[in-house]
């Protein structure tokens, strides 16, 4: 490698590190003070870009000057900061005390809402932004041309770091933020109105995200996918740096920027995998990140109350279950459409049940359960289409694929707890998604693979329904036995107090790992069944939105009940299937529904039944 080439590569690494830091700093500050992992931070980033492609060109009409360009960028950041205030006042304020899982879901609800609102306001077409006046040329560094704007970006990160340092150390607001990051209750007992502090923090955090987005407009067009792609990277940066630590975020952004800039030379396709490897290594060596503190992450419950006592169904429950199964078997008496929905409900019921096996029974909040579902689907689908095998061995391979992925990812996941664990599961899922999405030659990329058909004997919808019913119900019954077995009880004990379980000689980590693998295998089976029911596979089967669908199902059903998630899956999927064709704003509705669910009835459908009883 030539020296000039290395230099250019390093510079572009620094430029992306700088951008990444600006975004991640806001996320980490908001987390430090409010203890909420704000999914909507990516939405603020996207809104910053959209605001900038609207405001900046308008300003440049008056005069194509650098001053007006940057005035527009700052204005965009401030506008987004105000949106952060709106979110704090309308939503966050009501959920500071609820379990972390609900907070994550509620902020994800905001992500969904913003996605639809952005489409409404700006339409589906990407919007290219203007280049920055005065920074459109290239600079020659050792004979290599390097864009001036990228060079400028390199300085933005350190400048923001310096400004944040001044804010944090030289202003009362900053001192209060640092104090609240450590002990917000004590800050309140000293007379500080936390509501004001939190609102101010959200303004700052959202404005930083908005600034990050607005600064991107000369490089990338504003588009409706910016939110989820950036939030994963920002999560990785904050986790590596230590949640709540601004200098940690800077360090982590530098590491990731450089790693990606040089990693792309070695493994051109899998730079995300490198970031993940770094994260896995850091979390194993320093579970709270490079500069993080354990007390920041621990504290409040991650979960609402989970499964306490998995008693067998009472008589009413048994009747209900029997009626449900009979109704499913009778579906072919209706029409084809009902058979299709019934098949899907069975598949999602298995997926949701396996997720609640982790969440409700094990206290392991997986935010990326779709990864195992999707990998099961791909495992089965590719065996059929690429290797020419038939459905039977492919369906056998599906749980193996899901379980193997869960074994690999779970090995790291079960070392963590709480919010770090949730974020790691999500990061792994995003990596699996990225691999499937980018490895076009093998996976078909965005288009996926078609022609995943069942064997001839199972080709009719009715027979496939019965096949699905047999396999799903068998898997669910098997998992139920595990929940009731000593193994399940051990998982519950570890959920309620890992320290105590450790103390009485239980190998908590291994138990949780095995549980994770089991749940992954069950999700993989569900994914395999889904692939054959659709006849095709594509990357959305591993995506975050599907993971959130699964979480919504178990939440709707009630995570403290063993069988509630099945009802949740049925209700969720039936409603979605009915409503989705009727509306262009499914995400808006779903987002509002998730938020309403978190605010209004956090115990789910099974909770309703218990309340009525």
């Amino acid at each position, binding site marked *: 490698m030539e020296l000039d080439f290395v230099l250019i590569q390093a510079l572009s690494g620094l430029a992306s590190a700088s951008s990444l830091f600006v975004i991640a700093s806001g996320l980490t500050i908001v987390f430090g003070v409010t203890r909420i992992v704000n999914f909507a931070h990516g939405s603020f980033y996207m809104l910053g870009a959209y605001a900038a492609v609207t405001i900046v060109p308008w300003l440049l009409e008056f005069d194509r000057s650098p001053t007006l360009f940057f005035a527009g960028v700052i204005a965009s950041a401030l506008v987004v900061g105000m949106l952060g205030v709106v979110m704090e006042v309308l939503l966050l304020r009501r959920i500071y005390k609820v379990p972390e899982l609900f907070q994550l879901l509620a902020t994800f609800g905001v992500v969904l809402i913003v996605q639809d609102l952005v489409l409404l306001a700006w339409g589906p077409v990407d919007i290219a932004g203007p280049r920055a006046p005065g920074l459109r040329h290239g600079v020659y560094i050792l004979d290599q041309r390097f864009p001036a704007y990228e060079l400028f970006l390199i300085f933005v990160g350190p400048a923001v770091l310096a400004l944040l340092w001044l804010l944090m150390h030289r202003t009362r607001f900053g*001192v209060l933020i640092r104090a609240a990051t450590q002990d917000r209750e004590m800050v309140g*007992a*000293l*007379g500080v109105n936390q509501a004001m502090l939190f609102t101010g923090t959200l303004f700052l955090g959202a404005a930083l995200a908005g600034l990050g987005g607005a600064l991107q407009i000369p490089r990338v067009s504003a588009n409706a996918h910016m939110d989820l792609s950036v939030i994963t990277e920002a999560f990785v940066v904050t986790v590596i740096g230590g949640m709540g630590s601004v200098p940690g975020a800077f360090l982590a952004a530098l590491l990731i920027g450089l790693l990606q800039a040089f990693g792309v030379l070695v493994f051109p396709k899998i730079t995300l995998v490198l970031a993940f490897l770094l994260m896995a290594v850091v979390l194993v060596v320093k579970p709270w990140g490079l500069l993080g503190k354990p007390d920041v992450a621990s504290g409040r419950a991650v979960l609402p109350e989970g499964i306490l006592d998995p008693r067998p169904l009472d008589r009413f429950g048994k009747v209900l279950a029997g009626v449900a199964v009979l109704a499913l078997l009778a579906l072919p008496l209706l029409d084809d459409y009902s058979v299709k929905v019934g098949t899907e409900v069975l598949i999602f019921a298995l997926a949701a049940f396996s997720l609640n096996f982790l969440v409700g029974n094990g206290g392991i909040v997986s935010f990326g359960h779709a990864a195992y579902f999707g990998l099961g689907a791909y495992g089965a689908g590719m065996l059929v289409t690429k290797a020419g095998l038939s459905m039977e061995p492919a369906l056998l391979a599906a749980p193996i694929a899901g379980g193997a992925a869960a074994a690999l990812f779970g090995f790291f996941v079960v070392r963590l707890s709480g919010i770090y664990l949730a974020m790691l599961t999500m990061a792994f899922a995003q990596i699996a998604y990225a691999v499937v999405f980018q490895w076009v030659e093998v996976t078909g990329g965005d288009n996926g693979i078609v022609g995943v058909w069942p064997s001839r004997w199972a080709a009719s919808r009715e027979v496939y329904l019965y096949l699905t019913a047999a396999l799903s119900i068998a898997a669910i019954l098997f998992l139920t036995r595990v929940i009731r077995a000593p193994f399940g009880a051990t998982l519950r004990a570890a959920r309620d107090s890992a320290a105590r379980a450790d103390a009485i000689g239980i190998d908590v980590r291994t138990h949780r790992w095995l549980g994770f693998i089991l749940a992954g295998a069950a999700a993989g089976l569900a994914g395999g069944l889904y692939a054959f029911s659709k006849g095709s596979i594509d990357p959305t089967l591993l995506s975050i939105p599907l993971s959130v669908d699964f979480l919504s199902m178990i939440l709707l059903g009630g995570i403290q009940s063993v069988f509630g998630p099945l009802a949740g899956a049925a209700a969720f999927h039936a409603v979605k299937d009915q409503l989705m064709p009727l509306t262009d704003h499914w995400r808006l509705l779903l987002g509002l529904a998730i938020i309403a669910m978190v605010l209004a009835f956090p115990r789910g459908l099974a909770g309703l039944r218990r309340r009525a009883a």
Partner: protein
Amino acid sequence: MAERVLEVSGLSAGYGPAEVLFGVALHLDRGEVAALMGRNGAGKSTTMKAIMGLLTPRAGSVRFAGQDIAGLAPYRIARLGLGYVPEDRRIFTDLSVMENLEVGRRAAPAGRAAWTAERLFEIFPNLAEMRHRRASAMSGGEQQMLTIARTLMGNPEAVLLDEPSEGLAPVIVEQMAEAVLRMKAEGIAVLVSEQDLDFAAAVADRALILEKGQVRWEGPIATLEADEDVRRTYLTV
């Protein structure tokens, strides 16, 4: 009659399913120091947290400065002029001494001289020498001084002071006692929770003894010193 600053009656509170306080009644007059005594686990800290709003009272009333404060958010209670010094100190260890004081700073009510860092350094000379040191690098005694100084920066009318002498060397304990007397001299009412009778006798006019979440004995501190029976029943381990 002396002016009541704080008046608590029928106060019940607890943690989750655990009931800890069962109708605590106590009061504090302007400028007086009262010692809240009792064995480990008697409910002293819980009483203070419930008064301060850190724990929502389940029943009872808490009046402060003529206002019912039961159920208010802690920051509102603090703003009315009630200061709180927690037993585990809860210093902001990432912040310097001066920054810790800054977090506690609030304007003084009209007509009263505000506490400043410099005035506090007169009481706690040790702190003056380390104003820019991170609190994590301070000794336990220094942290105890800082936590009191931080609360005084809010210019409170009354202070709930939870076990200021716990785990400290005798010299430092003496300094704490002086600090409490200095607060009294400034007209601040202090409710100090304490297990050590000598310390209580050095600072307080009156004692209240808690046991199993109720006030069981109340009287002048001198009486308590003289009455061995009471001490044996409620205090000695």
